[in-house]
């Protein structure tokens, strides 16, 4: 056994001998580790599920306006679009050679606070999220008839809807005094599987249905005296005039810049083309200021934990004076005492980190499904990521540096004391 490994064993045995007190030190480091790593994991998963709410879409097109605003209503179905783009432009873009698919998005109505999105069957075919996952139906089928609606998982769960049920849409996106499209009830045909994206909180109908329910409307209110029954509505030309936004997928990603340039200088109307990745990052950076505050708090918790480590070891030095002097008398050098104390600190930090990782795994395993259910954040059980290794390394390094404080105190003490404390 080399001197180093002997000192490490000695440190371990000594610490075990004082485990009653040191347990709390390990506990506080466990807490710091769990907090820092848990936060990091939630942060990355939150960002991932946020930024990847839309994936595979190369360009989001809408009426001229702010990039972020366009993303908010095209992807998150939040806020009202102030301007629409024409269906003609949408069809022209869809018809271009480099375009593989398009998904139209038409907003304006809601159902009990959840946005209603007018779109086409292409939505179920081409919409991708989180690394290219396709939408799946948990129950039922996509809309086929005019007054069919497909609902998101959260809508279904919170309102207790099942396929076959009928529901009424309201005009407008928020407020309690919304006028309802009571004369044209919809039938739920399908429920989407949970995605952790805004799709969970939305209802999807066809663009034609969107037109149909507004046939007898003008300027946001039903036309007085005009009533068009659902059966009659089917006989009208239901091709939309306008949509809110268009999600565009290209055959080759490299063509995105050329198309974007073209859309931004569209002749017939003022359009904006946004690359979702960049805009989603921008939105995330706007809403994540809390992230830094949380990081700061958990860093402070870690510092508190390490201060506890230093003070526990420092406090133990008084009662260990004799133990250290005995070690010196049998040939331990002052440097050995430093190593002994530093080893103790590292062992404690190591134990704290291992317990922290275990606690994190237990938390993720037990709370992960609930998190995914209620917030759509998929926190998965996995090996530490690069960022998490960095945090672990940081805790180790900080722990090592912290344990040098009592180690150096012991060094000075054993130089000054020698064996005088016992002789």
């Amino acid at each position, binding site marked *: 056994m080399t001197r180093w490994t002997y000192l490490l064993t000695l440190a371990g045995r000594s610490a075990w001998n004082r485990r009653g007190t040191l347990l709390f030190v390990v506990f506080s480091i466990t807490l710091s580790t769990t907090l820092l790593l848990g936060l990091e994991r939630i942060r990355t998963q939150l960002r991932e599920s946020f930024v990847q709410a839309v994936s595979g879409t190369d360009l989001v097109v809408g009426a001229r306006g702010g990039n972020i605003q366009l993303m908010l209503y095209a992807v998150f179905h939040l806020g009202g679009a102030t301007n629409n783009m024409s269906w003609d432009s949408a069809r022209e873009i869809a018809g271009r050679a480099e375009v593989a698919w398009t998904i139209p998005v038409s907003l304006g109505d809601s159902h009990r606070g959840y946005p209603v999105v007018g779109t086409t069957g292409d939505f179920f075919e081409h919409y991708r999220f989180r690394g290219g996952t396709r939408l799946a139906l948990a129950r039922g089928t996509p809309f086929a008839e005019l007054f069919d609606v497909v609902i998101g998982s959260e809508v279904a769960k919170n309102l207790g809807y099942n396929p076959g049920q009928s529901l009424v849409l309201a005009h407008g996106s928020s407020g309690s005094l919304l006028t309802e499209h009571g004369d044209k009830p919809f039938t739920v045909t399908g429920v989407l599987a949970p995605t952790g994206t805004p799709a969970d909180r939305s209802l999807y109908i066809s663009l034609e249905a969107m037109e149909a329910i507004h046939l007898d409307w003008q300027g946001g209110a039903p036309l007085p005296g005009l009533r068009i029954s659902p059966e009659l509505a089917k006989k009208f030309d239901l091709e939309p005039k306008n949509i809110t936004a268009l999600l565009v997928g290209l055959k080759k990603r490299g063509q995105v810049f050329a198309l974007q340039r073209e859309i931004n200088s569209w002749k017939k109307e003022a359009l904006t083309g946004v690359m979702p990745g960049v805009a989603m990052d921008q939105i995330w950076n706007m809403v994540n200021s809390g992230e830094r505050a949380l990081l700061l708090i958990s860093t402070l918790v870690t510092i508190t934990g390490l201060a506890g480590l230093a003070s526990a070891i420092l406090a133990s030095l008084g009662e260990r004076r004799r133990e250290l002097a005995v070690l010196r008398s049998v*040939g331990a050098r002052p440097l050995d005492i430093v190593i002994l104390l530093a080893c103790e600190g590292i062992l404690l930090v190591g134990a704290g980190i291992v317990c922290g990782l275990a606690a994190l795994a237990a938390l993720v395993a037990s709370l992960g499904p609930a998190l995914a259910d209620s917030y759509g954040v998929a926190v998965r059980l996995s090996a530490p990521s690069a960022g998490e290794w960095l945090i672990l390394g940081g805790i180790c390094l900080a722990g090592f540096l912290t344990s040098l404080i009592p180690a150096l105190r012991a060094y000075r003490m054993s130089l000054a004391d020698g064996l005088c404390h016992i002789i």
Partner: protein
Amino acid sequence: MRPQEAAEFAFCLRGARFRWPGQERDILDIPFFSAGPGERIFISGPSGSGKSTLLSLIAGILCPSAGEVSVNGRCLSALTGAERDIFRGEHIGFIFQQFNLIPYLSILDNVLLPCRFSPERRGKAEKQAGSAPLAAQNLLEQLDLPSPLWKRQVTRLSVGQQQRVAAARALIGGPAMIMADEPTSSLDADHRKVFLRLLLEECRAAGSTLLFVSHDHSLAEEFSVTVKLAELNRAACPEENRGAP
């Protein structure tokens, strides 16, 4: 120091003076004090007379403010602090008044401690008994600590047993010198005699010089040399000189 003195003395102090920092006068001023290898020296003196300081000087824990201290032919002030630590680990075994043992180590591990830190002591122990643990076991048995006791926690040994474990630790690997600082003061009279007899036997067997500090004069007759510190020490107060019989 002249080379031939190396073999002559187990330790030797010449004009060694020591003063604690901040003190006005020396606590020790020893013109000359030496002992030959294998001698058994009994040092007596009231507490506070500088017995522990004297041991610290000979052990190289403290450095004299003037004069020189040599042990086993090596002048200690010529060594660096780290070298003195190594030298001490190799050549000196300690027995303290009480609480000698590391509470979280087994009896055997306590005895083996010097072998962990000093390769020389380990080498000598291996040479004597084949292996260091065997050397430790032999010593424990000779010191009347039979194997059934070895599994016991050191804190659950009697004080007398603890002191004998400490003696085994001091003796393992046959260091040139054993320093015992009031090792019997926490023992009752019967155990005192037994302990001293065992310690003297083992020191004789190992050929170690024994430096034994005590205020109990009844033990003095077992030693080859008996020294009153006050007689050695020019810095001793006159009252101390008077008080000594």
